[in-house]
């Protein structure tokens, strides 16, 4: 998808409303992604999970999608 290493702010601006697979991740102490390289993006999280098998190392599944405000959760 991109060979560029991007900050999380750049990633969110470039890939809105998507599930992402990010490699070469830099994390903060709370495991929040700070930067990395986006290698897959999709509206479907299942496609991102399928892409996992093509990469190694410390990977992050990350969502820039926003939950509809009129939808709730009951787990």
């Amino acid at each position, binding site marked *: 998808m991109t060979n560029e290493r991007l900050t999380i702010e750049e990633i969110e601006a470039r890939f809105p409303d998507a599930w992402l697979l990010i490699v070469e991740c830099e994390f903060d102490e709370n495991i929040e992604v700070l930067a990395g390289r986006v290698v897959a993006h999709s509206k479907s999280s299942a496609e991102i*999970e399928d892409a996992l098998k093509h990469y190694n190392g410390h*990977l*992050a599944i990350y969502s820039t*999608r926003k939950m509809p*405000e009129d939808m709730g*959760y*009951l*787990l």
Partner: protein
Amino acid sequence: MARISFNRLHPSQLITVQVNVGGITANESRSFPVGLDTGATFTAIPTKVALDLGYDLANPKKMMPILTGNGIISLKVITVRQLTAIGETVEDIDVVCLDLPASSMIKGLLGLNFLERFDIEILFSTNTIEARPR
């Protein structure tokens, strides 16, 4: 004490945090968003993530009956080498393999078998979680 922020921009939203699950070797890990769920007795991770990290789902530690809103289901329990969330890391912790609906904004659940190892305060006024080892 660990203190982390969570994003919850609307009352309908879950408390979502990022977890990092270590693979069977130290050079592999996967990070993904989960819902902090005190109603879940177990922490849950996606099946494909568990497989991708090298865990043997054909030979799980055990099968566990789990009561859900749709009835009782049987899920595979595996022991992952390391799980980090809310600023804390636990080694050799059991998780269940569960695939939430694709439309979900989270990929798993951070349940009581992780949370109970800490004293936790959820500060809704500042959208922060504070965790201290018990």
